[in-house]
């Protein structure tokens, strides 16, 4: 009799416990490496905003994600220790990030070593997915794409003959400059100057004067946000007057740059996402982003959002099993605010998403999508007007 009663109590306890655990499934742990302090912090913040919206949407879908955030301050060595911590101590199911190409490149082999699925949202140095790594996936377009869309547009709307390339000497900058050079040469543009600079210097006037002496038709620039502003200010000072200033995303796609209308108007920037795209959910995302953060949505946020959505859904479906997640990322296909995402092997790339690029032009402090014609009716304004 007594045994029976205990049995009843146990049964009662179990019946209470089971539905309870069904309502709140064990959260799936995902790591996020990002640059939220240091020089890259403004863009790191944008990426984090994308993650915040993704977490909300995952929750709506009944997926409970525990996001473990690590700050790498933009330094590859800190990114590496963050990856080691996430892979071993936190035993996460997968990792999204990091922001910069230098950091992503540094941790790419660690993902392989610890067998942790790594999804790179925005780092675009092409080598990252050219190492034949099987645990690394990249949603972001590559620097080849950044350079190609801009120069292609310039060639179609104008008749440029020469190009000067200015880039910061980071992984992203060097890689984009190399892409721009290769694309220019194969399309009959003469590369008249190549200048790689160390970022953070207050004075680029002498470099710009040297470039002005070559009188290039196009000036292609790769910089993060602060140097982008300085370069354009000083270009105005020394009177550098090409047919177009082409900025390869990053700093030139940041609202802080656009706000400086004196020097930012009519500058082109390549981007992976704008709210004018026809991909599902993009317009709602832009609207929500503006309401929640009171800032303009940019591609960094959209890339981050899509990456965490994919990683979260995949990880939950695979029950947090790393090997299953890897297989699911490898074979899966998604359609969301970044359009169709599929990690493919092509042209020497492994697990690389083929992402179509867009070009924006700054008009009165606002980004306007101007290229390609499949996404927008706006026409690029070319050539660049005379400096006042």
């Amino acid at each position, binding site marked *: 009799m007594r045994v029976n009663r205990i049995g009843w109590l146990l049964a009662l306890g179990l019946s209470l416990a089971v539905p309870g655990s069904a309502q709140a499934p064990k959260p799936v742990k995902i790591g996020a490496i990002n640059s*939220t*302090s*240091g*020089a890259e*912090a*403004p863009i*790191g*913040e944008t990426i984090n905003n994308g993650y915040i919206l993704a977490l909300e949407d995952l929750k709506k879908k009944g997926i409970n994600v525990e996001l473990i955030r690590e700050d790498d301050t933009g330094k590859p060595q800190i990114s590496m220790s963050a990856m080691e911590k996430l892979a071993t101590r936190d035993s996460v199911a997968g990792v999204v990030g990091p922001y910069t190409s230098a950091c992503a490149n540094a941790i790419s082999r660690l993902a392989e070593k610890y067998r942790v699925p790594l999804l790179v949202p925005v780092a675009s140095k092409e080598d990252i997915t050219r190492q034949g790594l099987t645990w690394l996936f990249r949603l972001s377009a590559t620097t080849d794409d950044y350079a190609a869309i801009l120069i292609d547009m310039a060639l179609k709307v104008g008749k440029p003959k020469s190009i000067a390339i*200015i880039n910061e*000497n980071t992984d992203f900058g060097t890689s984009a400059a190399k892409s721009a050079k290769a694309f220019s040469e194969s399309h009959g543009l003469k590369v008249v100057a190549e*200048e*790689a*600079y*160390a970022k*953070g*210097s*207050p*004075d*680029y*006037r*002498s*470099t710009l*004067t*040297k470039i002005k*002496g070559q009188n290039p038709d196009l000036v292609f620039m790769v910089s993060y*946000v*602060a140097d982008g*502003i*300085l370069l354009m*200010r*000083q270009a*105005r*000072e*020394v*009177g550098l007057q090409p047919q177009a200033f082409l900025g390869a995303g990053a700093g030139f796609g940041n609202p*802080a740059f656009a*706000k*400086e209308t*004196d*020097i930012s108007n009519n500058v082109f920037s390549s981007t992976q996402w704008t709210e004018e795209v026809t991909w599902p959910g993009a317009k709602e995302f832009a609207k929500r982003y503006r309401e929640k953060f009171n800032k303009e949505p940019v591609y960094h946020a959209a890339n981050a959002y899509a990456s965490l959505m994919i990683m979260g859904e995949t990880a939950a479906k695979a029950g947090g099993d790393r090997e299953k997640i890897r297989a699911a990322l490898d074979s899966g296909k998604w359609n969301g605010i970044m359009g169709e995402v599929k990690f493919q092997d092509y042209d020497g790339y492994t697990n690389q998403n083929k992402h179509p690029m867009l070009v924006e032009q700054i008009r009165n402090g606002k980004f306007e999508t101007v290229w390609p014609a499949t996404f927008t009716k706006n026409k690029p304004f070319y050539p660049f007007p005379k400096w006042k």
Partner: protein
Amino acid sequence: MTIFLQSLISGILVGGVYALIGIGLTLVFGVMRIINFAHGDIMMVGMYLTYMLFSMVGIDPFLSVLITFPLMYLLGVFLQKVLINRVLDALPQNQILLTIGLGLIMSNTMMLAFTSDYKILSTTYSSSSFSVGGSSISQPLTISFLITAAITGGLYWFLVKTNTGQAIRATAQDREAAQLMGINVKRMSGIAFGLGAGLAGTAGALIAPTYYIFPQVGSVFTLKAFVITVLGGMGSVVGAAIGGIIVGVSESMGAVYISSGWKDVVVYVIFLLVLLFKPAGLLGKSRM
């Protein structure tokens, strides 16, 4: 030739601001034998102060030096009395820890208060320039160079001619002997650190219209200040002024005639050569 002149002129103009940063650091080292690792961060505070005065009250960045300098001087005196003074006789590593810690606290406080966003101070003349013989000269940099020259001249006069200035130099030469001669060395240390902070803050104000402001901006300039100070001879005000110009010009020349990515290499090669042939720096006296 135009390119040569252009890079020479912009090198000298930027070098002027470097000089001001270096002078502040060298003054503090000369008097207290403390290497102030928070120097760049003090400069960063000056930049934010200028930014706030400009965006909230509408005071021109160059005019705001009149407010920034005294405020930063007071901050310097306060830091010296409350914190630096306690480690004057401590081991060098403790002094280093203290100043590095101070710098971290300052930059992180600024990050809490202003977020990590870049602040750009856009005046009407931020990217205006005038042309002399084919090379364009930045208007704001020219103004800041003139202010720097005036301040350096004034400081030199203060150190050489006034009683307080002579007392500061005496303290720098030999702290104990100065004390025996009746000089209040503690007061002199306070004044020296105040001046150092004031000069760093002024440099921040002067560079603000042409540069960008964010909480971690200090580290770039702390490093530059060291190179300038050691190049000119530690503790030598004139040496720091010359060192600043040398660094500015060699950066600019290196960028044009070698490559932008190599300009720091040019600076450090010159730096190493000076250390090799004149270990005490250009105008430094051997102390050991």
